């Protein structure tokens, strides 16, 4: 260790340091630490289950040439990058309301078109408001505090809970002051 004083970091290569790369590929291989359970069990590519990446014929036995067609019972949108519907599809939450109109419009554009995705994201936000209105229409006031895991935050991260509560309180207070002043004028 040099005893001289200087202000540079010895770990960092300096302009005056010559670094000649000559590492032997064989020498660079590392031996694993001792006691690794199962080390190298799949070293041989022949036992690796996804080698080669594309494996034909497949090892899976499939009892059909092509899957049967699922009956259409609800509206399902499909990408313009395919000529039609798939034989199998999900039927949960079909498009509805304003968000549904936005989703139908989004599906006029291909997956390759940014508008497709931006319209879907916008539809998701509209759908969130629709969800609250739908809850209220069914006489259910959503417990947003519980839905967001408020009790868990209180239990496991009380400091964070207090910080968020404080911020929320300040924001609500400022809005209240602003609204009151607007009314006075």
């Amino acid at each position, binding site marked *: 260790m040099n005893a001289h004083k200087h202000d540079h970091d010895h770990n960092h290569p300096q302009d005056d340091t010559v*670094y000649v790369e000559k*590492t032997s590929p064989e020498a*660079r*291989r590392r031996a*694993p630490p001792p006691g*690794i*359970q*199962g*080390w*190298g*069990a*799949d070293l041989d590519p022949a036992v*690796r*289950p*996804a080698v080669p*990446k*594309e*494996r*034909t*014929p497949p*090892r*899976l036995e*499939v*009892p059909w040439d*092509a*899957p*049967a067609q699922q009956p259409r*019972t609800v509206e*399902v*949108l499909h*990408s313009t*990058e*395919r000529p039609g519907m*798939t*034989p*199998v*599809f*999900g*039927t*949960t*939450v079909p498009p509805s309301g304003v*968000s549904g109109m936005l989703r139908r419009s*989004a599906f006029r554009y291909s*997956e390759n078109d940014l508008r497709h*995705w931006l319209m879907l*994201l916008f539809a*998701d936000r509209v*759908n*969130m408001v629709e*969800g609250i209105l*739908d809850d209220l229409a069914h006489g259910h006031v959503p417990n947003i505090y*519980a*839905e*967001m*895991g*408020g009790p*868990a*935050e209180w239990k*496991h*991260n009380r400091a964070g809970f207090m910080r968020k509560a404080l911020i929320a309180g300040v924001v609500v207070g400022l809005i209240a002051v602003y609204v009151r002043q607007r009314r006075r004028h």
Partner: protein
Amino acid sequence: MLAMNYRGPYRVRAVNKAEPEIEHPNDAIVRVTRSCICGSDLHLYHGLVPDTRIGSCFGHEFTGIVEEVGPSVQNLKKGDHVLVPFNIFCGSCFFCQKELYSNCHNVNPEATAVGGIFGYSHTTGGYDGGQAEFVRVPMADVGPTVLPPGLDVDDAVLLTDAFPTGYQAAEMGGIREGDTVVVFGAGPVGIFAAKSAWLLGAGRVIVVDHIEYRLEFVRNYAQCEVVNFREVGDMAEHIKRMTDWLGADVCIDAVGAEAAGSALHRLTGVQTMMQAGSAIVLHWCINSVRKGGTVSIVGVYGPTFNFVPIGNALNKGLTLRMNQASVKRHLPRLIEHIQAGRIKPSEVITHRFPLDAISDAYHIFSSKLDNCIKPVLIPPSASH
């Protein structure tokens, strides 16, 4: 039945809804015994995945008991206890004939760039997920695998996604004997990628994260080195220092779209959505791997675009490998690993929640409270 219900970003609740029905001759109805929350569910939970509709039920990691089968089902019968891969696939399309089951072309009308996934928005087919008491399982003759005797259901549920995805991440790295492998992300998938890297013959495994309890866990569970990126300066420079200044042979992205580590990427990728998620881990992978090395990506990103240093990848002659895991092709080998005692996947489970505590479960996992690594949901019908 009781089921998870998405109400908007950061808002979920348990609701009672109608049980699913057979909709296709090869459907099965499965009564769920275990269901996990996956790190990728958090992208849905945070409202980042396009076409995530209010009222959807998430959950693509589940096991269950077959309650009913459609008229054409041959390989399953009522009472079978099955693990259900997160991919829905037909087994017979162009891609399935190449064993690319995660890229099946017959199960997702809404998008061609991604296959079918249970409970993962309409962008992956609009299927309900398994965070419920019952779930419709399409293509029942090809997807589900009956639990072999002696396989613990808690190990089985981790075979539906997390373990195969971590394993495939390592496998796509093309690891050769003695290679140095850097895994970004110490969540369940990163933990399994680190463990799998040893199975594939790595000589050195380094896991990078910023959450201490997860680094501590993976250091013990996978016997690897760990780096807290908050404690180092420049990530690529740090990895170069650790690897004789050449870089790692293989870098794995097991984080995806919501990565911490760069204020710029958080702003553009998460807060303002100007790119399809924070791409900082892709930067770190490309810039930390050695020339001629391999970057393997299993972290999930959105469908639009990301800012990545593709020029460096070109100039370094990198191989970029990525995909959703084709779970079914991995299962026989991974079950062998469990049965041989080489790995016990269920050791990553830290939390068990009744299904009706879904709101707290999501919040605890999302906010990484209470040292949570992997939460499992237990439906009421499976809790006794």
